[in-house]
């Protein structure tokens, strides 16, 4: 039966098909609303039915995301979503599996599962909402909060050095690493599209404004006027130039990447982005800024092919069947040394 005859087929999916009947309960003005709306609107173009899609989340404001998607969903415990998702994705390779996590959930309590899901290259799409604060527990500093951050748990300022999530993912041998921003619908959707198309684990850091506990943390990049000057948009195979062509990322005298005015910079020194090339370039681009208070790279840092974990697991099962024959319990039980009593 052709799709059009069936009705409700893939071609006719709409945002509504991915929107659950649950009332959305983030704080008014939260960046999560924009991400939710963008994801719900983007999902139909994948052509994957809601019942073939699973969203998995942990604890924190991001954890609620699962309930608002009209797909299969699993809202787990704190930090463990990548592990739950690994079980799901390996068990059923037909599913489109998404993990929604935050900077506390994914980088603090669940850091171990995040890095291992990335190095295994499990076929899951990880969206890490980074707001640099603990929101659900009402405002403690997070593993991405800047040094000196004054919060309820750090009245004298945080002395912790923050993670650079992109560098962490690259260090974990991730095959797809990107960063985008909650309120830039187009950029966000473009990155989601690439993440969804990638075979294996995709890691997407989304700068997300917490307007209650950390308002304005990303203004330099997120606010329209400032963003136009300070977002360094990475485009594969193109020179890394931003601020309306005025500034660039170039190789400095000591070999480190620096922000330099295009005028007066040797064009050979201006970096050309290469998402498939050496991971050290992506790593260096991740360190152009010390945080979102300086010009910062967004877009796809790295995108390479590597065997997908679930495929390798299934290949092994298949090879074992070919080598040993399909498992037979009666044979298993009576194999080896036996004796008969009559």
């Amino acid at each position, binding site marked *: 039966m052709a799709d059009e005859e069936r009705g409700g087929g893939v071609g006719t999916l709409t945002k509504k098909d991915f929107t659950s009947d649950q009332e959305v309960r983030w704080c008014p003005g939260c960046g999560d609303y924009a991400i939710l709306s963008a994801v719900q609107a983007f999902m139909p173009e994948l052509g994957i039915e809601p019942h073939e899609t699973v969203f998995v989340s942990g604890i924190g404001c991001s954890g609620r995301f699962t309930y608002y998607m009209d797909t299969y*969903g699993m809202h787990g415990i704190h930090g463990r979503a990548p592990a739950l998702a690994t079980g799901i994705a390996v068990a059923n390779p037909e599913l489109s599996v998404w993990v929604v996590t935050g900077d506390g959930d994914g980088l603090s309590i669940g850091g171990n599962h995040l890095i291992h899901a990335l190095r295994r290259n499990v076929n899951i799409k990880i969206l890490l909402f980074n707001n640099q604060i603990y929101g659900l527990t009402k405002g403690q500093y997070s593993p991405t909060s800047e040094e000196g951050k004054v919060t309820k748990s750090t009245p004298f300022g945080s002395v912790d050095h923050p993670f650079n999530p992109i560098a962490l993912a690259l260090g974990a041998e991730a095959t797809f690493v990107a960063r985008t921003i909650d309120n830039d619908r187009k950029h966000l959707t473009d990155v989601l599209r690439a993440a969804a198309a990638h075979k294996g684990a995709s890691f997407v850091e989304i700068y997300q404004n917490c307007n209650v506990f950390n308002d304005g943390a990303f203004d330099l990049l997120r606010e329209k006027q400032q963003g136009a000057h300070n977002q360094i948009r990475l485009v594969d195979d193109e020179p890394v130039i931003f601020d309306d062509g005025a500034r660039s990322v170039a190789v400095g005298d000591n070999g480190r990447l620096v922000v330099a005015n295009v005028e007066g910079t040797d064009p050979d020194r201006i970096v050309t982005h290469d998402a498939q090339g050496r991971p050290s370039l992506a790593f260096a681009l991740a360190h152009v800024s010390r945080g979102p208070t300086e010009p910062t790279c967004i877009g796809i840092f790295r995108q390479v092919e590597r065997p997908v974990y679930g495929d390798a697991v299934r290949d092994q099962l298949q090879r074992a069947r070919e080598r040993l024959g399909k498992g037979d319990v009666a044979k298993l039980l009576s194999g080896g040394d036996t004796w008969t009593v009559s």
Partner: protein
Amino acid sequence: MTKTVEERERVVIRFAGDSGDGMQLTGDRFTSATAVLGNDLATLPDFPAEIRAPAGTVHGVSAFQIQFASTDVTTPGDHADVLVAMNPAALRADLDKVAPGGTLIVNEDAFTQRNLEKAGFEKDPTADGSLDGYQVYRVPMTSLTLRAVEELGVGKKEADRAKNMFALGLLSWMYGRPQETTIQWLERKFTDQTLIYDANVAAFKAGYNFGETTELFATSFRVEAAPAEPGTYRNIAGSTAMAWGLIAASQRSGIPMFYASYPITPASELLHELSRHKNFGVVTIQAEDEIAAANIALGAAFAGHLGVTGTSGPGMDLKAETLGLAVIMELPLVVVDVQRAGPSTGMPTKTEQADLLLAMFGRHGESPMPIIAPSSPADCFHVAFEAARIAVTYRTPVIVLSDTFLSNSSEPWLIPDSASFPSIDPAFATSNGDGFEPYRRDDKLARPWAVPGTPGLVHRIGGLEREDVSGDISYEADNHERMTHIRRDKVEGIAKELPDLHVDDPDGDAELLVLGWGSSLGTIRAAVARARAEGKKVASAQLRYLNPFPKNTGEVVRRYPKVLVPEMNLGQLAMLLRSRFLVDAKSFTKVQGLPIFAEELERAIGEVIDG
């Protein structure tokens, strides 16, 4: 000289040596040959946590004990009739485990001044008369082995390593064990290493022939096959039985098995065994940690697989939060806890059964889980299968409480007919076109297992309290109370279909009930048999289901004037029985990292009856 052959009803042999001497392998091989002869048997591997403790030291001693007989064997034996000591440290460590007047076979070559000092002997005990109460045989096993293999051209190291085969050969002669079983095994083991195979066979035969030809040994022994139900038997260790039970459940139910685990002693054996059987469609994942292992298995369960995770005590602590999640998600999950001596790292290679209350109560909130405990190595097969059946039928995580002793020990097993296994119906939900209610229940209070990928059933589950029937998030007061009761009632309701607790009370007039659980079954049977032989009126029963208890448990424990509960903990089952049934159950406890011995329990039975 003429050699005589004497009949023996039962024999306990203990092989002891340095961790690197291959004593576990020697014991395993002796066990296989014994099993093939049709003796009943029970084994106890007893090894240190260190892979290779400093050679020749007492804490590096690794031992393997086997009891075999022409009659029923229920334990590995309290005392050894024969101790094979490969060095002075083994003699030092295990002499107190030898029966008075027992036989000591020592590797004379290892009794050097330096080794004696390392073991803490001032003088050679085999020469100074201190072992006069024993029958001592000094056999230069190392040099005889070296001589046996010298023409093969193997290196000195490999030659030296074959001396355990010499010991095995000697003991095989002494007890009439078949040579073929061992030689065929060596063939399989060293298919591609001809030289090593030749050396091991040469050493084995040298040991066998040494017994047969030298004048040192005048007598060999025969232990007739034990009477057994007709059928085909094999010897099986608890860890293998556990793995095979899970595989059988997966095959019977048609639900692919998915095992996620983090290496931990003694549960790693389960991971190793399962990972060998991928042709059964068994997925095994060595997770990044214990928490991940539980979550990966739970994720797989959501996706319609038979999710299983295995660990030991420290891992159970870490998995606790995930088990609570499985409880509220009401998904099938099997959790195997191979208990070891705790707390904390405790004694990783030593047995204990002190995780019962952890299994019962070790999660926050009201978080009930069914608990089943195998009572012998072979029973691990049936309990694993049963755990999977309960998990799938009731959509609940289930804890299996095995222990180090069960996992490492082995016994003969009448191979069951795989067609006789009970059915396990996953009963996956399908859409009937109406709205889907993920927390609507069947008559067992089980909710639908709706697997992602199924049209018409999209739903979200999670750790937040669910609204009855709809499964939506709910903080409503009455709903939480109702759901808490439902989760409790669902687990309690399993008792409706459980077999009654079987009581062994031949005359029906016992004045004492010995009630155990888990691996103590063999000890209890042996001790109770001895007490009865002395004219005591004793009944016994073994709880396999610990949560819920079988329906008649209360009636059973109230029926007897006295109840004694032997446990390798400080009285955990006794505490449950006392609180649940208001009975004055007495505890007999032992926490030495070793099984309870029959004679210890026999004494305790006497004291309770007389006291």
